């Protein structure tokens, strides 16, 4: 069954929905991290696999992005 959409409450306070989300997620992460124990030993440097956006809003660390965009534009 689908839950009914909760209508946005105006002026509920900035970050209200986000705060609830953050609380839920924090709890889950805490449980998950605990269940994983200490985990493997820390590694010195590790490359991020997911794309990131630099402060300037430019997309970085996404290999071949220019090629792919050109491909789309054709």
């Amino acid at each position: 069954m689908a839950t009914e959409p909760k209508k946005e409450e105006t002026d509920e306070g900035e970050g209200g929905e986000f705060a609830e989300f953050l609380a839920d997620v924090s709890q889950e992460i805490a449980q998950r991290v605990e269940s994983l124990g200490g985990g493997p030993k820390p590694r010195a440097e590790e490359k991020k696999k997911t794309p990131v956006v630099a402060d300037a809003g430019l997309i970085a660390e996404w290999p071949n992005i220019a090629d792919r965009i050109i491909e789309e534009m054709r």
Partner: protein
Amino acid sequence: MSVVNYGTREITCKIVYYGPGRSGKTTNLQHVYSQLPEERKGKMVSLATETDRTLFFDFLPLDLGTISGFATRFQLYTVPGQVYYAATRKLVLQGVDGVVFVADSQSRQLEENIESLQDLHSNLAEEGFDPRTLPLVMQYNKRDLPAAEISSLEELDETLNFRGVPHFSASAINGGGVFETLRSIASLVLSRLSAPAAKES
């Protein structure tokens, strides 16, 4: 795959909002962005055409701060829904941890929903994911439209949700159902968090 990185003390999860054109994927991200407190508002990157349709993708980095000693980030992406941006959709799916399928509830859009879902499964398979096990939630958007114009939740669920994944009714334009959907996919993704393999060459 999302990983608890004990080396850098980071948790990063990539969530992609998928669905047909104009189903409300960007609207979902815009609502999330609008609810962020100022100190957490980063940059939402959106590449749109003159008619406000997503050209390549939207990207919203969600910095959740330090949780249990780990810098935690959710990266929310949308894909362009139009059929001719197939390569971009595949590109955005790389490294995905969870997918929100945003379906357009309008009856006349049912076929587009089906095609987009098939496209998702096909692209996931091509990217090496098992479409049957990757965390997925369905969002039936635009429930605020007149009843005569939209499919029933039962019909949408029967047609689209053959995996029986969590599903949510939403009106993203008003913010309804947006965070419920995000919370659900976040929960599914987090339940699969794992420590990275200890092997090192």
